[in-house]
């Protein structure tokens, strides 16, 4: 089967090369049949890459350790659920996933634009297939997912236990869908510049893909944050890790673009800015992939192997140089058709929002690539940590949240101070009430958090006011009931109200971030069974040790050999609140040198975090048992001497029993964070709002609305 997979890669490369040549020939020579043939080649590419992906997926599910990548990242003890996801845990598999998703999204983009912008689409698909060809070439020449070893090993190394988490099934495909979708606007942007058609049509065509990329990337980022929080033992959801930052940067520029493209649609302004944002977003998406794949920066997400660094640097160099050349050489065509009518207008607020978003992106870019820049300049590697990022990003985020509240109440083109005053009255009053209430509750000791809460309250009040007023208008116009009026208001103005919902989500998310990071209580200490500690207002008592042996009793279903943990009772003011059950999973290393018993638990141990979540606070606990203690170590050593591999599990049973009877002191990490839940709720609201805004209006409704406005325009203009 490996032969079939590799043949698919060769066919994919041939299809890419044909496609690029056919498209360019077709558009240059005015031979549309070649452009059409090229477009169909993208469907063919999607077909062969689907076959290739299925071949690899089947190899994982069948435990075919003849495939090197299966042997390196899966094993018989890896649960089936995670074996299916293990495809994209390796460098080779994730490159295949990237190329496959790109081919699917490209096919969809070309299918939807098959009757429009043929000249732009021809160049765009050449660019998309250029990307696909690049990734397929990487697989053929550097990281072949179908490389085999014969005879096949009897057992594989197993999936990295850190990745045995349900979110990991969906996080990478979401993120990669986001990255690949971000390259579609880039490709169409390049196509529009090459074809010299930078009108409203190409903006309209790419908007939905930019939106989809933004949605997928956002969902991927959120799922990654959830994984960090629930799975990694460090207790946070965001650590300014290089790979996290890499996914956030294109999301920020895509957010800026989705706002500024409205200005171009309505006013014919910001053409240079928009096309630059599109090109930057696509390039940052490729750079994000580069960071994960090249191994140039240390990250928990990086998959090692610096072999891909040079090809990626070349691609990024071409993208940056090409983008600059195209924008500069087409600057005459990109002139604005209008100027800002007033500084007090939604356009100017969007412009300010764009500057903040790009500023945030720049800060994160600098902080992320600083180690590389520093090493290149001084020869010494140095890096910046979360405090550096927080210093710049927190004030910018605060301004961003404020702007997301100001924008919705300012009219397009021109607004008057009197109107603005009237519209701001209620939201400002709500923010002031929040300020007073929170200051009275003692929140004032954290001024930045207090400012974020007030800004959040302001945004929520603005959006609530907008919904109430819009519903009233709709009620008065159509004579509908309030719920019906609200529904039709959103249905008829999906972009506007979907956007408002997104703003609510952002405000809620940032309130959660500000609360959980500013008012967190954390402690790391060693406890023996029976001992207690205080974290914030809570008392946590190590009640008794716990142990479970795979597979029947493995509560986390991650395929660990044994999980040793603790039962921790949480009380507040003498009343029982909850019980935490953190544990640490020990996994097989497959290393014979560690002995028959030692190898069963010699892999990377992984913390199984226990969380009691709630609307007001999360109580988070992790444990690191000491299995190096005398009694436990003796069992392993004796087992190594006397037991065969088949019998070794007996020693693991003894070890678990000994741990339950005489548990050595364990290292605990407890965190009590307020409002963490609202980060995930905010993220979900953003996602739902995005779906509302991106959902296409039914064509019938659109046609009716268009007809009504045509009729009204003509009547009123005839009267004028």
């Amino acid at each position, binding site marked *: 089967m490996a032969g079939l997979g590799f043949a698919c890669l060769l066919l994919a490369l041939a299809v890419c090369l044909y496609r690029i040549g056919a498209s360019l020939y077709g558009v240059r020579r005015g*031979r549309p049949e070649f452009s059409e043939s090229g477009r169909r080649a993208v469907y063919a590419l999607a077909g062969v890459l689907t076959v290739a992906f299925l071949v690899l997926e089947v190899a994982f599910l069948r435990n075919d350790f003849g495939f090197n990548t299966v042997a390196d990242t899966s094993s018989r003890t890896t649960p089936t659920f995670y074996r299916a996801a293990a495809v994209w845990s390796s460098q080779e598999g994730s490159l295949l996933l990237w190329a496959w998703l790109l081919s699917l999204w490209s096919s969809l983009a070309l299918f939807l634009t098959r009757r429009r912008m043929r000249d732009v689409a021809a160049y765009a698909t050449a660019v998309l297939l250029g990307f696909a060809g690049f990734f397929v070439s990487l697989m053929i020449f550097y990281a072949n997912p179908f490389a085999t070893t014969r005879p096949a090993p009897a057992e594989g190394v197993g999936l990295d236990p850190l990745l045995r988490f349900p979110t990991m099934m969906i996080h990478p495909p979401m993120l990669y869908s986001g990255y690949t979708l971000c390259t579609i606007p880039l490709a169409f942007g390049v196509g529009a510049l090459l074809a010299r058609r930078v009108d409203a049509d190409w903006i309209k065509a790419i908007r939905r893909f930019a939106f989809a990329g933004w949605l997928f990337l956002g969902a991927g980022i959120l799922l990654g944050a959830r994984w960090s929080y629930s799975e990694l033992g460090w207790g946070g959801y965001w650590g300014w890790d290089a790979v996290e930052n890499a996914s956030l940067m294109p999301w920020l520029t895509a957010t800026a673009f989705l706002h500024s493209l409205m200005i171009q649609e309505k006013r014919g302004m910001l053409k240079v800015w928009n096309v630059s944002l599109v090109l930057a977003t696509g390039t940052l998406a490729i750079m994000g992939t580069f960071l994960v794949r090249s191994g140039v920066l240390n990250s928990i997400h990086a998959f090692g192997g610096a072999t891909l660094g040079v090809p990626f640097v070349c691609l990024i160099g071409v993208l940056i140089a090409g983008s600059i050349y195209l924008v500069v050489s087409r600057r005459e065509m990109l002139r604005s058709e209008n100027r800002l009518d007033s500084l007090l207008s939604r356009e100017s607020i969007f412009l300010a929002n764009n500057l903040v978003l790009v500023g945030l992106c720049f800060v994160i870019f600098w902080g992320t690539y600083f180690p590389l820049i520093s090493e290149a300049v001084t020869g010494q590697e140095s890096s910046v940590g979360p405090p550096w990022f927080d210093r710049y990003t927190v004030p910018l985020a605060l301004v961003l949240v404020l702007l997301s509240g100001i924008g919705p109440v300012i009219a397009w083109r021109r607004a008057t101070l009197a109107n603005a005053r009237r519209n701001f009255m209620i939201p400002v009053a709500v923010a002031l009430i929040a300020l007073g209430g929170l200051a009275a509750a003692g929140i004032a000791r954290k001024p930045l958090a207090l400012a974020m809460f007030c800004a959040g309250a302001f945004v929520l009040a603005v959006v609530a006011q907008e919904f109430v007023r819009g519903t009233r208008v709709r009620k008065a116009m159509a004579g509908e009931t309030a719920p019906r009026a609200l529904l039709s208001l959103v249905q008829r103005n999906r972009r506007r109200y979907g956007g408002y919902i997104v703003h609510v989500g952002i405000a809620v998310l940032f309130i959660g971030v500000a609360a959980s990071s500013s008012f967190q209580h954390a402690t790391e200490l060693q406890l023996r069974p029976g001992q207690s500690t205080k974290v914030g207002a809570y008392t946590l008592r190590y009640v008794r040790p716990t142990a479970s042996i795979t597979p029947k009793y493995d509560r986390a279903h991650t395929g660990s050999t044994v999980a040793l943990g603790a039962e921790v009772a949480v009380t507040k003011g003498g009343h029982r609140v909850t019980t935490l059950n953190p544990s640490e999973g020990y996994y097989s290393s497959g290393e014979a040198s560690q002995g028959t018993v030692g190898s069963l638990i010699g892999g990377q141990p992984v913390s199984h975090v226990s969380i009691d979540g709630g609307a007001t606070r999360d109580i988070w606990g992790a444990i690191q048992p000491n299995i190096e203690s005398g009694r436990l170590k003796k069992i392993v050593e004796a087992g190594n001497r006397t037991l065969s591999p088949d019998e070794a599990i007996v020693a693991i049973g003894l070890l678990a029993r000994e741990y339950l009877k005489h548990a050595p002191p364990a290292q605990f990490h407890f965190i009590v964070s307020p409002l963490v839940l609202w980060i995930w709720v905010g993220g979900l609201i953003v996602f739902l709002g995005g779906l509302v805004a991106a959902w296409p209006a039914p064509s019938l409704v659109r046609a009716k609305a268009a007809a009504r406005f045509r009729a009204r325009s*003509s009547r009123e203009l005839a009267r004028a």
Partner: protein
Amino acid sequence: MAVLIVIAVFVLIGLIVLVVGTPLRRAALQRAAAAAGGAAPPSGETSEEPLRRAELEAAREAKYREIRDAEMDFRTGKLSEPDYRALDGELRAEALRILDALDELDRASGREGSEQIG
């Protein structure tokens, strides 16, 4: 197994050629038919007219959206009545210019003006 893989690869190649080659084959047949009938073969030149039309239609949709947004801004109290009237008139005049350009395009291409107003 090896034989099956070879067969599968050839099937894939056949499918790719079929999918990718269809437009080329169709164009070749059209050219042959045109040559046999004495007519000039289709040039395949990309006409500017559909591109201009797509551009104007996109601009028209954006303008309608802008008119709707301005109305919503007025009704929800973000624009004063005089400002709204002035802005609405301006937007409708811009919409009319786009509709005129579309009509012009229709006349030039000999089509019935589907967006005729008045």
